[in-house]
């Protein structure tokens, strides 16, 4: 159980371990994109973790990284094809960041640090937990940026017909700054938790 939960808060891959920053900034312009990316990451993480865990006694240590990469790339390509076929809107919204999931340090990191050394069930849970943590991270930032920068959430107008939102949040500078404050916020919460015992 711990395997599942640790990825969500304490070892949240994006907000605490600071992995996978590139898609975090790029796809969080709208909450729906964030969910799409989060679900894709969960699929790849769990599938790759399970596969690598199953093969962990077969993959030779010296060439393990290329093996991991090929396995991960395969699942990423599956996501790419499936999204293109069944969810074209998300496919065009996420664009080049779908294939870039393959170089997302979260996935390679978990394969190396966990899945290659633990049995299948634990690896699957680890992947699921980390994936959910990533999805939460994406969603949190996207919600902030969409609400402040567009006046909507999931394309539902929140502030009436003609809001004048702070556009900067949808643009690159807003992405960096929002994420910076988000992580600072997490740090503050963690510090308070530690202080309270």
């Amino acid at each position, binding site marked *: 159980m711990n395997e599942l939960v640790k990825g969500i808060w304490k070892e949240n891959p994006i907000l605490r371990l600071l992995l996978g920053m590139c898609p975090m900034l790029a796809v969080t312009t709208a909450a729906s994109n964030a969910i799409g990316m989060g679900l894709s990451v969960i699929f790849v993480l769990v599938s790759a973790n399970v596969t690598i865990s199953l*093969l962990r006694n*077969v*993959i*030779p240590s*010296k*060439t393990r990284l*290329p*093996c991991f990469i*090929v*396995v991960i*790339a*395969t699942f990423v*390509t*599956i996501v790419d*094809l*499936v999204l*293109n*076929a*069944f969810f*074209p809107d998300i496919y065009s919204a996420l664009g080049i960041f779908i294939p870039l999931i393959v170089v997302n340090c979260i996935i390679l990191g978990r394969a190396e640090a966990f899945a290659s050394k633990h049995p299948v069930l634990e690896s699957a849970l680890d992947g699921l937990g980390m994936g959910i943590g990533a999805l939460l991270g994406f969603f949190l930032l996207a919600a902030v940026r969409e609400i402040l920068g567009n006046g909507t959430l999931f394309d539902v107008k929140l502030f009436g017909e003609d809001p004048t939102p702070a*556009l900067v949040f*949808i*643009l690159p500078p807003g992405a960096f700054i929002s994420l910076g404050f988000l992580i600072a916020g997490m740090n503050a919460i963690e510090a308070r938790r530690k202080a309270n015992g």
Partner: protein
Amino acid sequence: MAEKKETDLQAILVIVAIATVCAGGLALVKAATADRIEQTKLAAEKGAVGKVLPPNCEADTEKKVFWNKETGVVKSEAEATQIFYPGFADGKLCGLAVKTRAERAYSGKIVMLIGLKQLEQPEMLKMHRLYVLEQTETPGLGAKVADGQSIDPDQLPSKDPKKFFCMNFYDKELSKFTFDVKQTGYSENDVAAITASTITSKAVAVAVKEATEMVRGKLPEITALFEQQTAQK
């Protein structure tokens, strides 16, 4: 020494085995999704063209014609600078959509569709609607070229081109249209520029002007080409 060689060979074999299984798996997934992907693409194309054609005029994307502004009719999308799509009602040609692009807008290219109607005579040609397919302009500024384009023009809260840029090209007679881009003091036959985004507005106006002039100049030829496509099928 012999032992080391064994593990090296083993290592290579394992990778090759994994790679082969993966490639095989992907081929299966690809086969399973290929049709669907093609279908989605065609449906999207037909939907987009349908948006710019007048009501009751059905888009026929299978009869599309690839056109290069320098060489005329070409065989593939790669060689084309424009694509012409016909629209039919009861077998008669009722509308024409041109897919064209502005290569250098503010932050890159803009791909758009402009729908035309009243094709009996080049002098009577009217622009029906503009639909932006791809753009990477600044949100809140150049990106406003696409504002309101998904909504049926009759259901838009306002037809003010300053509010909805696509209204600049709604139901306009080509023979009277100037394609002059102005921030203020524009008439209904000019293009009202998006506030603070003159470059984007101009890029789109120029692309639409070029496309419509092409149609105006070659209307009989293009109509004949559509008929040829019909005959071939």
